[in-house]
């Protein structure tokens, strides 16, 4: 009888130990970067986050209510009541807000490019442990130039309908890295002179464009390849990141060194006529990139390969063609789907045997 009780007790303890999901505190919504520049870098999101002092603002309420109903991630659950003693916290961060306008036949076209990241933070050592990027691209036509309020409503709607939906759908892929696990980080993004000349509005904003590409690469590795990713930092030497939370707290987090670094190079864009008729023309747009997975410290290159991808774009005669938009779309597909497929088909990177493991498998997040 006593023996049975002991076994039941041990079983219960075992179930508790194995079944207890790690609890991670919710740190809230925050802005990445220079605190003083928040109204300049994120004018609309900043306006949306304004509210009465002491009360949660509109964005805080939006994220809180969504996460309240969806607390469970792959290997952790969110502590929204701050009742646990965990040092780890999850923050939803905005990294980029860009709303560009164009005038087309008396109408105003607005292009929304928004980048967000879920960061897993260590509040004891003030480190960023992981990054899971999300991006939203959206184009809307307005009969007349929209007011700031209309733009803000649209951004709020995109957050509510697209960002939250995207987070919910990827929750099973968002996992806390285990102690001693390996991680990767985008270290450098280079753009060739030929490609720079075709970057349209980003020709003179290269750092912004590099950040977009780095985020896309981080997203590809984190979600497409299940790799533990650290965030890309513009200032590679400093490896610091400031996050401004809605309660006006500004905290500096360090980005730890990665086990492997990634260098992305955009080599060139290519455009060629595929077909032309009296009514339309079809062009092929291509992007050529090169990705290197390496370890600078041990002078080891694990993978260094060119990847290219092309897609056709149809234009009705008389319609204006936005070459940059097409190049950009193809480039994101190259860094996204095409690169994912190339790496997944690479036996060396994906090898998973007892004594032979590819670097992608070594960095598996779960």
């Amino acid at each position, binding site marked *: 009888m006593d023996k049975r009780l002991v076994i039941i007790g*041990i079983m219960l303890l*075992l179930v508790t130990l194995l079944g207890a999901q790690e609890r991670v505190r919710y740190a809230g919504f925050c802005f990445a970067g220079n605190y*003083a520049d928040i109204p300049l870098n994120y004018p609309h999101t900043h306006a949306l986050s304004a509210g009465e002092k002491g009360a949660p603002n509109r964005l805080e309420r939006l994220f809180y209510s969504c996460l309240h109903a969806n607390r469970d991630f792959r290997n952790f659950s969110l502590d929204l009541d701050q009742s646990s003693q965990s040092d780890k916290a999850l923050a939803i961060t905005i990294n980029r807000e860009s709303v560009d306008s164009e005038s087309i036949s008396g109408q105003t076209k607005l292009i929304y490019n928004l980048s967000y990241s879920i960061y897993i933070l260590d509040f004891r*050592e003030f480190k960023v442990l992981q990054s899971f990027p999300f991006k939203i691209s959206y184009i809307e036509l307005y009969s007349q130039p929209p007011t700031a309020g209309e733009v803000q409503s649209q951004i709020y709607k995109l957050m509510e309908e697209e960002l939250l939906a995207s987070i919910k759908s990827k929750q099973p892929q968002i996992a806390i890295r285990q102690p001693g696990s390996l991680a990767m980080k985008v270290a450098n993004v280079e753009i060739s002179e030929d490609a720079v000349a075709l970057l349209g509005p980003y020709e003179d904003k290269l750092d912004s464009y590099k950040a977009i590409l780095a985020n896309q690469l981080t997203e590809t590795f984190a979600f497409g390849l299940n790799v533990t990713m650290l965030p890309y930092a513009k200032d590679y030497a400093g490896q610091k990141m400031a996050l401004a939370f809605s309660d006006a707290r500004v905290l500096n987090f360090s980005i730890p060194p990665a086990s492997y670094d990634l260098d992305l190079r955009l080599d060139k864009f290519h455009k060629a006529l595929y077909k032309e008729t009296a009514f339309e023309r079809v062009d092929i747009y291509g992007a050529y990139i090169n990705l290197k997975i390496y370890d600078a410290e041990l002078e080891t290159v694990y993978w260094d390969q060119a990847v290219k991808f092309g897609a056709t774009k149809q234009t009705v005669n008389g319609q204006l063609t936005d070459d940059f938009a097409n190049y950009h779309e193809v480039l994101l597909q190259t860094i996204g789907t095409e690169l994912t497929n190339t790496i997944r088909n690479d036996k060396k990177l994906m090898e998973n045997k007892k004594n032979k*493991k590819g670097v992608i498998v070594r960095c598996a997040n779960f």
Partner: protein
Amino acid sequence: MRKFLIILGLLLILSAGTEQLDALVKVKAKGSVATKNKKPKTEERQQAILNGQQQALKKYASGLDSQRLSILNELMPELLKDIEKYILDTTPLNDGEYQNGNWEINLEVSIDDAQIEQLVRQKTPKLEEHFLSFVYVAREVASVEFHEGTVSIQADTDRDHFKLDGSIVMNSEGISYRSYNPAEIDSRVTEIFNKAGFDVVPAFEVNLTPEQFAYDFITLDEISNSTQKEATDIARDQGLEFLALGTLDIGREEIDPVTGQYKIYAKVGGYIMDLRKKFAVKICSVGPLQYSGLGPNPTVAKTNALIEAATKASQDLVDQIRVKLTP
């Protein structure tokens, strides 16, 4: 039943281990072993990993300041002998490869910093009843006066000469300082000296006057000889064996371009006087070294910079004095 207990024990160890892993330092190293086999035997692989772990420990030590490096170099045989005690985890970064008669593997090694610190404390001499007091003073800019000066240059020219005509405006600034001593420095420095085994006697207990040091530092840019002499005499009369003196110069605030926060630099210098002999002897010194602090406002940035500077300088002094006191 027995198996259950073993599994349970392992789980408990693992769960405790996850907490411990937070105090580690990750170091990358290459492990290699001379072999004729392109596919190494198990023992050759293990030897390569052990060599890599040893390399990682040496690499970790070489990244530390010179005094700590010299302490760890002394302790290196012991560290290498019980290497598994100081290395928490070793993760291969690749499968290893055969090159020129060597099989090499890239490793990421997690070193237990706290365990090494414990060894340093165990092996360095017990500083029994060594009384030490310290005076650290800090100053910051109170006001800056700009002075403009003009230098005129004139020269004639003819066929063989050229002519210069103009003036240069030269600016200079007169800076006045005020004292700034947050209490956090005292507690941090006390902690470091205490951990090193010293009995820290507060300055007021031995009638030392930090105000006099601060006055000298603000007005003279240094601690005057008379103030130093007076302090060492008082300290010796009161039975102190060591007196540590430090000066911290707080720079002007600026905006950190990366974080957008306030950034302030602090310059630190210091030394320890050994009062046990006939003459007070400066047995170790540090600086001047510069450290920076960040904060959402200048006060926090300033305090962070001062704590960082005082901590690093004190740690360096402690490491130096440990070496000096080793029999």
